[in-house]
């Protein structure tokens, strides 16, 4: 006579169970069938279920050595059917085990080679979920080509090996497990980061205005201006004696325009590496460039976008290693892309 056993059947049969395009975990029902044993009808059976779902990055390009798990599921049922109650969006190797005691025998069974797989969003789904900001959407195109996953079993990890992942290639702060397996969470995280960088960019002009470097530039500009005005006055009236003191020009450094704010935000998203997208414009001698008001009491300094060449020069001058610079052409790359 054959040995008593419990056999698992899974519905659907698998072995691949895709997470839906809308980031819903697959609905999987497992059934345990007793074989070669007849349970005592007076003793209710208890099926102890254990489900593990884990991903270790093996076989995935540029994956870091990071184990991502769905919380283990342990549940006891009195019936032989069990629908897996996933509570997190995760992919990877799926194992379902059951243990059931029949009379004096404990029977166990486990599934093999099952895998929860991923589904990339369509552009339509992405458009429905991403914040309605075309710059941010173009950024997603540059970061990932609108892909969360490289294949149905692998998230899209950044080629630099730093664990950046998904649609927004979230890198720093390190992406959460949810942001790795749920494209919606990745986009949400990307947008939060974008807004955070926007706040930093918005605060930047004030920090420059309050800084010693700008104050020093203003002082020097006024020194230079004074020299010129004194000479002009002396030439006009050679016998006028000591000229009256020339008051300093009040020089304003404006806040960013909307376009400038957007570009500096993009730069921040990629990493400033010590240099914002804009800097205060100076001439070749390092003197502030100012547009003077006709009243001659105030003037306006201006922002200058840092070109790719100047950015590389700054990094070379400040010993910023190549792998810490980000993309010197990032802002232009994003702006040249199509929105969606």
């Amino acid at each position, binding site marked *: 006579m054959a040995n008593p056993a419990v056999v698992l059947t899974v519905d659907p049969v698998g072995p691949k169970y895709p997470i839906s395009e809308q980031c819903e975990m697959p609905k999987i029902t497992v059934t345990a069938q007793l074989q070669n044993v007849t349970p005592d009808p007076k003793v209710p059976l208890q099926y102890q279920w254990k489900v593990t779902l884990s991903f270790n990055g093996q076989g995935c390009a540029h994956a870091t050595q990071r184990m991502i798990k769905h919380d283990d599921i342990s549940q006891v049922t009195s019936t032989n059917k069990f629908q897996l109650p996933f509570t997190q969006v995760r992919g990877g190797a799926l194992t379902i085990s059951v243990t059931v005691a029949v009379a004096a025998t404990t029977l166990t069974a486990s599934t093999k080679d099952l895998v929860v797989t991923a589904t990339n969003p369509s552009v339509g789904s992405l458009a429905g979920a991403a914040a309605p900001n075309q710059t941010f959407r173009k950024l997603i195109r540059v970061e990932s080509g609108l892909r969360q996953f490289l294949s149905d079993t692998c998230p899209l990890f950044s080629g630099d090996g730093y664990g950046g992942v998904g649609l927004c290639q979230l890198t720093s702060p390190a992406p959460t497990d949810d942001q790795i397996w749920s494209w919606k969470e990745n986009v949400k995280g990307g947008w939060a980061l974008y807004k955070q960088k926007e706040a930093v960019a918005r605060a930047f002009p004030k920090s420059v205005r309050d800084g010693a470097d700008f104050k020093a530039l203003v002082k020097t500009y006024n*020194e230079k201006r004074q020299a010129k005005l004194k000479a002009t006055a002396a030439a006009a009236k050679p016998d006028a004696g000591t000229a009256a003191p020339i008051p300093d020009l009040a020089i304003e450094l404006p806040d960013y325009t909307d376009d400038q704010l957007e570009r500096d935000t993009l730069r921040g998203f990629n*990493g400033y590496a010590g240099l914002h997208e804009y800097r205060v414009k100076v001439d070749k001698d390092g003197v502030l460039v100012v547009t003077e008001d006709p009243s001659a009491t105030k003037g306006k300094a201006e922002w200058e976008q840092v070109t790719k060449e100047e950015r590389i020069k700054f990094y070379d001058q400040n*010993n910023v290693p190549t792998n810490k610079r980000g993309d010197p052409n990032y802002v232009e790359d994003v702006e040249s892309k199509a929105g969606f």
Partner: protein
Amino acid sequence: MKPAARYGLAYTLLVAFALSLPGRCVLGQAATPGRFLYVIGCDARVDKLDTIAGRQVETYDLAKQTGKESLIPIVHGAFDSCLASQAVYDIKVSMFFTAVPLSNEPKADGTKDYRVLTFSVPRMKLMKQESGGESLDAPPHLELQSERLKILKPSAWMPQTDLDLSAYSPDKAQTPNQILESSGDRVLLRLFTADDKQLVLAVADRKTQKLVRLQGVPTTVAPNVHIVPGGGHVLIEEIRTGEKPEKTGMLALFDGVTGKPQKKLNDPHIRDLYFLAVSPTGRAVYHSSNDYWFVDLKMKFPPAPVSRPVSKGYPAFFFAGR
């Protein structure tokens, strides 16, 4: 038997005392003042250069010098702001101070908290950590005042950018000017005149209250003029002006006392490199990232630091004897 055990505490104390002496005799080896240039990059990496041998001799990652505590953010990929700002060297205790952010990511309002770390030289051992200020929109300014480190909020610090020349002979006139660099008692100035296209350079001696204009200055721009340690000379990089100014490779050394040209050198290598500093051992140090190049000026200078009111465009650095 180990020497310390044989000679006991006295030997140990003697060795410890000798090692603590900055820039002096260490167990018979005389240190050359200002021989070594320490360059602190934006990513908190320190390159140690031997200016006499003309090569890089060591590299340290300050983030890995803080023991078990992670005091400098470890950043994967591009970082936000520099991970180390300023390097103030205290020759008396042979230590340097630098400001580091607590985290790479700024707070919601764009500010950061900072700490000031003290490292020994040359071992780069963390000696002390203290608060550098909270919720700052730029790193704090560090300054040695009366042999003590002062940590100033960026908004509370303003460099001196010009000199009142009304007491300086021969003109004793309040000529508008800009301090470009200074060292010792001498200050390298740009004098502003009626012709705002003309670059007029001068050296003011604070001690003697004398102002000397440089004569026969080659074509250049203000950022390419440098005072040497001690302020006795001025090094000028010749610039080919045009739409995009370019270095020609010609260097001219001027006497800071007479204002006259003293020496000319030509080194095509420097055309594509960035000026970093002149060492007390007489080398003009150039670089691009951590590729360094040394031009021997065949002179020696006092080991006095050079300060710049606006230090943008330069990594932090200092010279030390060891």
